[in-house]
């Protein structure tokens, strides 16, 4: 069992900086958990507390059934892969992978078994006698992973391991890491600030901001039902559009009034906003670009830029001075300065409280 559990964890750095505020997180055995969020939100701090490199100011940390607050990193059964991975330049790939085990005084036989096994999983057996200089970026990254694998850890901790690679290689390595996770069948905790990485690799994603956890869910749920405006904005590219809206009730139906147009809310949403007393109030309406449909009776906006991607076209427009991005069929041609008219699919829009920025219907 290698679940990782954080209970009301706080981190205050010695200089007084409060980096993590009472977070709870339950990382399930064998899952690929991605911690994602903007710079400085506390991802690395959290990972390092799991690793034991950073003192926990308050709260409890468990790996498996053991409380590890006072357990040294070397006794935590974890392995780490970092952004600034480096390999011993003068050692062969084999010796690079074996070094940690030698330090831990493993027998030659055991070391050999483990290194061979890890090399097999990573498909780097032919490279074992090479030196790092004779390897490509991707191969080096694999060796760095190999150094972690030979430890046979219960939990893998990775801090932006791909951020030093070029874009193409990064995409390749993403797929490889997912496969590795599948093959090794152990718990991964993975830190990135890149939402695409998070969405493509995580079985679950933990979105952090300013030392707090915003939401923990699987990628689809995060995308479809963001808990608050921050999450809604953070995930998705181009970003979700946000518009001021007033909720009104007419003839038993509930509408969001946006740019003087009425958008009828579906029954579920209508019931919730009625129940929570939002009728007559101003809210923030969020809608993703791909949920727009051209409609002569819809919101009017002026086209500023179009982005043709072949399979789809994004139109960057302005309605009453506010930017709105919509996705349209690539067969439809629009020109700069042209006026377009569209509606958002009501079952797909989100309503956020203006003050708390929480998703009203979630």
């Amino acid at each position, binding site marked *: 069992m290698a679940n990782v559990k954080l209970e009301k964890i706080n981190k205050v750095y010695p200089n007084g900086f409060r980096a993590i505020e009472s977070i709870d997180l339950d990382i399930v055995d064998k899952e690929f958990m991605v911690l994602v969020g903007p*710079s400085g939100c506390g991802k690395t701090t959290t990972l390092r507390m799991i690793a034991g490199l950073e003192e926990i100011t308050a709260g409890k940390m468990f790996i498996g059934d053991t409380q590890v607050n006072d357990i040294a*990193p070397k006794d935590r059964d974890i392995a780490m892969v970092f952004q600034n991975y480096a390999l*011993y330049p003068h050692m062969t790939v084999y010796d690079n992978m074996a070094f*940690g085990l030698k330090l831990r005084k493993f027998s030659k036989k055991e070391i050999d078994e483990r290194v061979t096994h890890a090399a097999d999983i990573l498909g780097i057996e032919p490279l074992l006698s090479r030196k790092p200089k004779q390897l490509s970026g991707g191969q080096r990254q694999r060796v760095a992973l190999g150094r972690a694998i030979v430890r046979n850890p219960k939990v893998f901790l990775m801090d932006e391991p791909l951020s030093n690679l070029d874009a193409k290689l990064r995409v390749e390595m993403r797929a490889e890491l997912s496969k590795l996770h599948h093959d090794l069948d152990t718990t991964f905790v993975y830190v990135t600030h890149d939402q695409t990485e998070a969405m493509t690799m995580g079985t679950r994603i933990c979105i952090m901001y300013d030392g707090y956890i915003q939401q923990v869910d699987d990628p689809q749920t995060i995308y479809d039902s963001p808990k608050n405006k921050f999450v809604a904005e953070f995930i998705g590219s181009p970003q979700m559009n946000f518009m001021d809206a007033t909720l009104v009730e007419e003839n038993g139906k509930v509408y969001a009034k946006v740019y003087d147009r009425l958008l009828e809310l579906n029954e579920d949403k209508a019931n919730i906003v009625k129940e929570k007393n939002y009728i007559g109030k101003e809210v923030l309406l969020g809608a993703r670009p791909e949920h727009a449909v051209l409609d002569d009776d819809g919101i009017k906006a002026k086209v500023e830029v179009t982005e043709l991607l072949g399979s789809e076209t994004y139109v960057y427009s302005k309605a009453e001075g506010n930017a709105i991005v919509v996705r349209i069929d690539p067969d439809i041609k629009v020109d700069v300065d042209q006026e377009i008219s569209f509606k958002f699919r009501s079952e797909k829009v989100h309503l956020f409280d203006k003050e708390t920025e929480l998703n009203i219907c979630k």
Partner: protein
Amino acid sequence: MGLTQIKNIFSKIASSINNDIVLTDLNGVIIDCNRTELNGSIVKIPEFIEGKEIFSEENYDFIFIKQYNFPRYLLGIKDNIQMLNVVSLLFNDKNYKMTEANFYRELVLNNIKKENYDELKKEFKIEDRNYYRLIIAKVENSEIKNAKYIIDNIFIFDKNIILDSESIAIITSKPDVEIENLCNMLFIEFSTDISKNIKLLVGSKVDELYDINSSLKDIYNILKLIEKFNIVKDIYFYEDFLIPLLIGSTRKDLLIQLNDENNKKYDKIFKNKDLIYTAKNFFKNNLNITETSEKIFVHRNTLIYRINKIKEISGFDLKLFEDAMRFYIILLIKDMDEK
């Protein structure tokens, strides 16, 4: 001759004579004596003792005890200078040999005279490099051997010397990026496999190997700074502390006055968390708009808006290096003042 040996000889002498006799370090802290009540206290030492063979202070006469040929301790005796002369002979270390390792050690500690240096350099066939800098690894006493083993393997072409029971010095001429990578490795390897109590400090660069001691001095300055401001990092790079060290060496009243003025002038920025966060991250990402906006997750237009806002309020255009540097220092003084 090591300290244990010195102490052994000392205790034999101390028990067989009647005069008060003390063994101290160069600061006068008593390490051993024959009047137990004095143990651990300090005897007064004249300020300039370098180059002297024997000197007196209050009732004691002192003589240097040399370890590896270098003054390390003082032997003091009350009212009997002849006996001091005789007794000191017992400490002569005839077996001392200047090995290459000793040479580097004494060099780091600034114990080698220039004329000896030139000779020894020839003797050990040491070639010149572009620059040198010192890295100090501080670990727990019990882990020094493990640390040395990893360092031997990571900094394979660099000399390393055990300086004292808790620190190893590495003399390197490697480029910065490589130093950073290797230090990262050392930190990770050591902290995950052995103990997380390791501090790595990278000192300043010097052009001549002979001056390597100033790299060590700079490391001591960083140590003081990180203690004062409770800074915790994996690796402490001299360059990262350059401006704080500079500011730290400025007159305190001047700094306070400056900060007070800044507080008034830039109040609107200081009170705006978003602006401060944006500015700091803009510096961190080398004044690169795209990278910063990606990392802190704000739209580039928002980022540009905030940077313009700072310009509007303060006049500093952070897109320009000079302005950015000035504002960076202003923020640094503010942060230091808060502590």
